[in-house]
C-alpha cells in the first residue's frame, strides 16, 4: 500500500482558525516532564508518533497492511539476520537539521548499548549508515518476525542531540526534537500542548493546529467526557450511553476495535484441567454472549474460537473455521464430563480484583459452570498477586489478556509457544497455562523463519486450528481498545468501515496517523 494520505488539501488554510483538539490518552493525575520515547510509563503520550516517528506504520486492524513512513522500503538479507532500510529524503528535524541514516543507525545502536531501553529485546549486532538514505541493521538471529518491533515500534531520535546525553536511559528529553507532525509547545504538570510542525514532510498536514493534553485521572475523565471537555479519549466508561453519548450518537462517537484476546486460562498442570474434554466442557458451558453483554457492557465482541481478532484477521483463520462461533451446549458439556469424578470438578478462578469487569465475568462463569456441575470459587486478588500467581502457575483457572501485535502470530506466540513454558513455581512471561506441544512449537518457529506473507498466514491458520481443536486456552472475548471521539470539531476518524488505524489515542504511532486524517468539521 502506498502513502494513504487521502489529504484533499487544506479545507481550512493555515489552521489559525481551527480549534485545538483536547486529548485524553492515559490516566494521570499530573505529568512529569518526560518525552523520552523509550521510557515505559513516565513518558508523556504523543512522544512517539507525534514527535518521534517510526520507520514504518503497521495497521493492527488490518494485519499485513504496512505503510512506509520514515523509511520508504526495507529489505532482508542474510536469512533474516540483516535488514536494510531505504529512507525518505527531505525530512527535517524540527530544529532544522536534516534527518539522515545516521539518526536511524544511532537510534538502534543506542538500543543495543542500553539494554534497558530495548524493551522489544531486539538482538541487534550492529547498526550502520550505508548512505545518507540507507541504513543496515544486523541481528544476532533471524529476525523476520520482529519487523514490526524494528520498523513499527522504534521511534527514531535525533543523533545530533541525543549523542550528547551521557545516559539515554535516564534522559527525559524535556525539549523534544522530532520529525513528526507536532512539536511540544507548552508544558505544565496539569497540561501540555503540542502545535503543528509547519515544515512537516507531509505537505498541508496536519490540519489540527494545536493538541491539548490535560491530566485526567480515570475518574476525572468521566466527568470531562460527560461535560464535553474532551474531544478524543481512550477511557473505559462504565455506562457509555449515559455518561458520554448522551443521546447524540452522530456526534459523540466511539469505536472499540479488538486488540488481543482475553482468554480463560486453564492451568494445564492441573490433573483435571489437563483433560481436553474438561476444557471442552467448560468452553461449551460458558455463555460468552452474556459475559460480553453484562460484564463487558457490550463494549466488545465474543472472540473467534481461534482467538484471531475479527474482522481484519480473516486471512489468518483456517477456512473450515471461518464461520465458527461459540454456542452454549450444556447437554454436550455434561456428556463430556461423564467420565470425570464430579467431586474433583472444583476449581478456584483467580482474578485481579481491580479489573472489575473480569471480576464480574468470573462471577458469570461461576454461575454458568455451576449448571454443568463444576464448582468454581472466584477469588479476587491484588493485581501484583495475580501477576505473580499466574506467572508461577499457582492457580486453577484465571482470566488473562494476551499480548497483541500487528498479526495474530504475536498473540499465538505469547499464548502457546513452548519456549515460554516454565515449570510451576518459576515465573513465566507467557504461555501461562503451560501448553507443551511439539507441533505448535514447530509452527511458530516456521513463521519466524520466513518473510513470506502467504507462508506466514498458512502457519497462523494451523495454529488457529490447534486453538479450536485442542483448546490450550479458552478465548472469551476481545480486549477492546477504547476510543471516544467527538465529531463536532473534526471528522475523519477511523471506523469499522474504514479501520485505517487503531482509534485509541493511547496507541502509538497510530494516534499520529489518526491525527493526520482529521479535517475540521464543516460548520
Amino acid at each position, binding site marked *: 500500500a502506498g502513502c494513504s494520505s487521502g489529504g484533499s488539501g487544506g479545507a481550512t488554510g493555515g489552521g489559525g482558525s481551527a480549534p485545538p483538539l483536547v486529548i485524553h490518552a492515559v490516566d494521570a493525575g499530573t505529568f512529569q516532564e518526560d518525552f523520552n520515547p523509550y521510557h515505559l510509563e513516565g513518558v508523556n503520550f504523543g512522544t512517539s508518533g507525534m514527535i518521534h516517528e517510526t520507520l514504518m506504520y503497521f495497521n493492527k486492524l488490518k494485519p499485513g497492511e504496512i505503510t512506509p513512513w520514515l523509511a520508504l522500503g526495507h529489505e532482508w538479507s542474510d536469512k533474516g539476520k540483516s535488514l536494510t532500510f531505504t529512507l525518505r529524503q527531505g525530512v527535517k528535524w524540527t530544529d532544522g537539521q536534516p534527518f539522515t541514516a545516521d539518526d536511524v543507525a544511532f537510534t538502534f545502536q543506542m538500543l543495543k548499548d542500553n539494554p534497558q531501553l530495548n524493551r522489544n529485546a531486539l538482538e541487534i549486532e550492529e547498526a550502520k549508515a550505508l548512505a545518507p538514505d540507507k541504513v543496515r541493521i544486523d541481528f544476532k538471529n533471524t529476525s523476520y518476525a520482529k519487523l514490526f518491533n524494528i520498523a513499527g515500534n522504534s521511534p527514531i531520535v535525533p543523533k545530533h542531540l541525543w549523542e550528547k546525553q551521557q545516559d539515554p536511559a535516564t534522559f527525559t528529553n524535556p525539549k523534544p526534537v522530532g520529525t513528526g507532525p507536532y512539536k511540544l509547545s507548552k508544558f505544565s504538570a496539569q497540561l501540555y500542548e503540542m502545535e503543528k510542525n509547519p515544515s512537516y514532510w507531509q505537505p498541508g498536514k496536519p490540519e489540527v493546529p494545536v493538541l491539548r493534553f490535560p491530566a485526567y485521572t480515570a475518574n476525572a475523565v468521566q466527568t470531562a467526557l460527560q461535560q464535553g471537555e474532551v474531544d478524543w479519549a481512550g477511557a473505559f466508561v462504565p455506562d457509555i450511553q449515559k455518561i458520554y453519548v448522551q443521546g447524540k450518537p452522530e456526534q459523540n462517537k466511539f469505536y472499540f476495535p479488538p486488540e488481543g484476546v482475553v482468554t480463560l486460562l486453564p492451568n494445564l498442570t492441573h490433573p483435571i484441567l489437563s483433560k481436553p474434554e474438561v476444557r471442552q466442557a467448560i468452553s461449551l458451558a460458558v455463555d460468552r454472549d452474556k459475559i460480553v453483554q453484562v*460484564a463487558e457492557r457490550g463494549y466488545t465482541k465474543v472472540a473467534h474460537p481461534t482467538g484471531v481478532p475479527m474482522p481484519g484477521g480473516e486471512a489468518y483463520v483456517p477456512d473450515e473455521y471461518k464461520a465458527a462461533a461459540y454456542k452454549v451446549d450444556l447437554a454436550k458439556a455434561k456428556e463430556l464430563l461423564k467420565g470425570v469424578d464430579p467431586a474433583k470438578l472444583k476449581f478456584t478462578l483467580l482474578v485481579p480484583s481491580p479489573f472489575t469487569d473480569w471480576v464480574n465475568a468470573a462471577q458469570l462463569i461461576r454461575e454458568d459452570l455451576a449448571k454443568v456441575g463444576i464448582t468454581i470459587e472466584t*477469588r479476587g486478588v491484588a493485581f501484583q498477586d495475580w501477576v505473580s500467581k499466574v506467572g508461577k502457575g499457582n492457580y486453577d483457572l484465571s482470566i488473562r489478556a494476551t499480548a497483541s501485535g500487528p498479526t495474530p502470530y504475536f498473540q499465538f506466540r505469547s499464548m502457546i509457544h513452548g519456549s515460554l513454558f516454565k515449570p510451576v513455581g518459576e515465573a513465566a512471561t507467557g504461555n501461562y497455562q503451560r501448553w507443551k506441544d511439539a507441533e505448535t512449537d514447530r509452527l511458530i518457529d516456521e513463521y519466524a523463519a520466513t518473510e513470506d506473507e502467504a507462508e506466514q498466514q498458512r502457519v497462523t491458520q494451523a495454529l488457529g486450528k490447534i486453538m479450536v481443536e485442542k483448546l490450550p486456552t479458552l478465548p472469551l472475548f476481545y480486549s477492546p481498545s477504547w476510543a471516544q471521539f467527538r465529531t463536532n470539531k473534526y471528522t475523519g476518524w477511523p471506523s469499522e468501515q474504514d479501520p485505517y488505524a487503531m482509534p485509541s489515542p493511547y496507541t502509538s504511532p497510530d494516534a499520529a496517523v489518526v491525527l493526520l486524517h482529521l479535517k475540521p468539521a464543516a460548520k
Partner: protein
Amino acid sequence: MKIKIGAGILVFFTLMALLGPLLISADPAATSNDGLQGPSAEHWLGTTQTGQDILTQIVYGARISMGVGLLSAVIATVFAVLVGLVGGYFGGAVDETLSVLTNIFLVLPALPLIIVLAGYLPQRGVASVAVVIAVTGWAWGARVLRAQTLSVRRRDFVQAARAGGEGPFRIVFFEILPVLLPVIATSFLATVVGAILAEAGLSFLGLADLSTVSWGSMLYFAQNGQALLIGAWWWFIPPGLCIALIGTGLALVNFGIDEIANPRLRTIKVRKARA
C-alpha cells in the same frame, strides 16, 4: 438512652448480618439483566450496573464488614491489653520498650501504613485484611490501658492484693483487668469503628478482596461504575450509610459507657423548678 439507641442499631445490623442471608438467600454477586434500576418493589434498594441486587449485597456485605471490624478489633484489643497491662504493671525496661513501641505505632499514620501493607499482602482475604488493620490499630488502646494500669496499679486494692501474697499474673488478670473492663470495652468499640472504616477505605481503594461483597467493595464498584455521574445514588448511599450507622451505633454505646463512668458527660434536661 444513648446505649439503648446505639445497642438498637448494633442489634439491627447484627441480626441483619446473622439472619439476613437466611431470609434473602440470593447470591449477592449474582448478576441479572436489569442493571441500574432505582429502588422498586422488586429491588428495594435498586440494582448495580451488572444487575446485582443492592439490598442483598448490603445484607451479605454486613457479614464481611462487621466481621473484619470485629476480628481486627479482637486481635488489636488482645494485643493492646497485653502490651498495656504488662507494660503498665511491670514498669521498668519492659514498660519503656513497650511504650516506645506503642508510641511509634501511635504516631505512624495508620491508613498509609495499612495501604502500604495491604499493597503487599499476598492474600487479601478477610482474615489477612483484618490482621493488617489490627497491626496498625492496637496502639491507641495499649496507650490508654497502660495509663489506666499505671493508676490502677497504685490503687490500694492492688497493693493490698500484693501484700496478701498474690502473684503478678493473678494481679494483672484478676485484679487489674476486671477493673479496666469498661476501658477495654470502650477501646474495643472504638477499634471496631476504626477497623470498619479502614476496611471500607481499603476496599474502596481496591486493595481488599473485591470478589467478596463488603460495603467497602460495593463503594469501590459504585465509584468504578461512576454511580455518581449516572445519578445512581441508590448504589453508593446505602453502603456508606450502613458504615456510618454502625459506627454511630458503636459510638453511642461507647459514649453511653463513658457517661456511666463520668455522669457529667450526660446531656441533661433542664427542668423548671417545681416551686
